[in-house]
């Protein structure tokens, strides 16, 4: 998997470099026009934001209940990626909204719950950085709450009245809008997988360094 990471990063960089031309060739949306093209980067970032929360939650559950120490490294990696992809979602969304809705932000269920998830990731990482001994278990518990928020975020646009487009827009996309979307989604996913691997590797190497220092102190 380590050898695959540079390939995935290189491929996604090429694809993200080509993406503007493919997106430019896609037709304009009838009511929103040009600004709707933010969707081709916003949607992959948002989905990977939710996937990161699921990975972080599952790894944290394995760490808490299964006592698997290595799962904690994957949880930290997913939390950091969640923060990065969440930031991309929460910045590209308002840029789109300002033009399409006339406001940067509305406190509707989709936007508010997404912001809440981003804040859970921030709190998780702050706790890991400054929480001291025992913060790993406390943070893992917090990650479970983050994971529980994911289905709520996903269905919120279908359950409550909101300005945000519903989940049905993706399966009903015409082919000439679907191709750029899934092309960008593939690029983002490859980058996400490579970054998750590298970040988890960083955490596992850090654990080895700590173990070696402890061994030195004991000797």
């Amino acid at each position, binding site marked *: 998997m380590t050898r695959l990471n540079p390939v995935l990063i290189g491929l996604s960089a090429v694809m993200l470099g080509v993406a503007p031309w493919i997106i430019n060739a896609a037709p304009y949306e009838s009511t929103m026009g040009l*600004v709707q093209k*933010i969707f081709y*980067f916003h949607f992959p970032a948002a989905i990977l934001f939710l996937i990161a929360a699921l990975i972080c939650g599952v790894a944290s559950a394995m760490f808490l209940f299964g006592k698997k120490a290595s799962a904690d490294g994957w949880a930290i990696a997913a939390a950091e990626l969640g923060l990065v992809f969440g930031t*991309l979602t929460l910045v590209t969304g308002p840029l789109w909204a300002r033009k399409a809705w006339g406001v940067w932000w509305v406190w509707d269920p989709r936007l508010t719950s997404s912001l809440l998830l981003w804040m859970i990731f921030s709190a998780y990482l702050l706790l890991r950085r400054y929480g001291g001994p025992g913060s790993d278990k406390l943070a893992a518990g917090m990650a479970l709450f983050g994971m529980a928020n994911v289905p709520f975020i996903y269905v919120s646009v279908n359950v409550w009245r909101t300005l945000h487009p519903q989940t049905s827009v993706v399966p009903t996309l015409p082919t000439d809008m679907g191709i750029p979307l899934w092309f960008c989604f593939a690029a983002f996913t490859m980058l996400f997988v490579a970054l998750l691997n*590298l970040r988890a590797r960083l955490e596992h190497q850090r654990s080895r*360094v700590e173990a*070696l220092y402890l061994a030195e102190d004991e000797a």
Partner: protein
Amino acid sequence: MRFSRLLLLLLVLAPAGWPAAVHARQPPPQSEFLPVSDIPEGEQIPAFTMVGGAYGFVWVVLLGYVWSIARRLQKVEAELTALERRGQ
């Protein structure tokens, strides 16, 4: 005593006079809407700026994050190698 009474009187009267002062500064209320065919230039939001800003932001953040992970990983692996050498 006289001064404190005057101050009290001013404090009571000041809020009463405030709305009149505010109204004096406000423009007159709009009595009709006039249609125009185009939005005034200052009110238009350029979509290209928003799209360019969004794509630029994504690129900068992703490149920055890749660079950050690579730098941190290099540092930790160098430390690990040094520790392993020291232990041998």
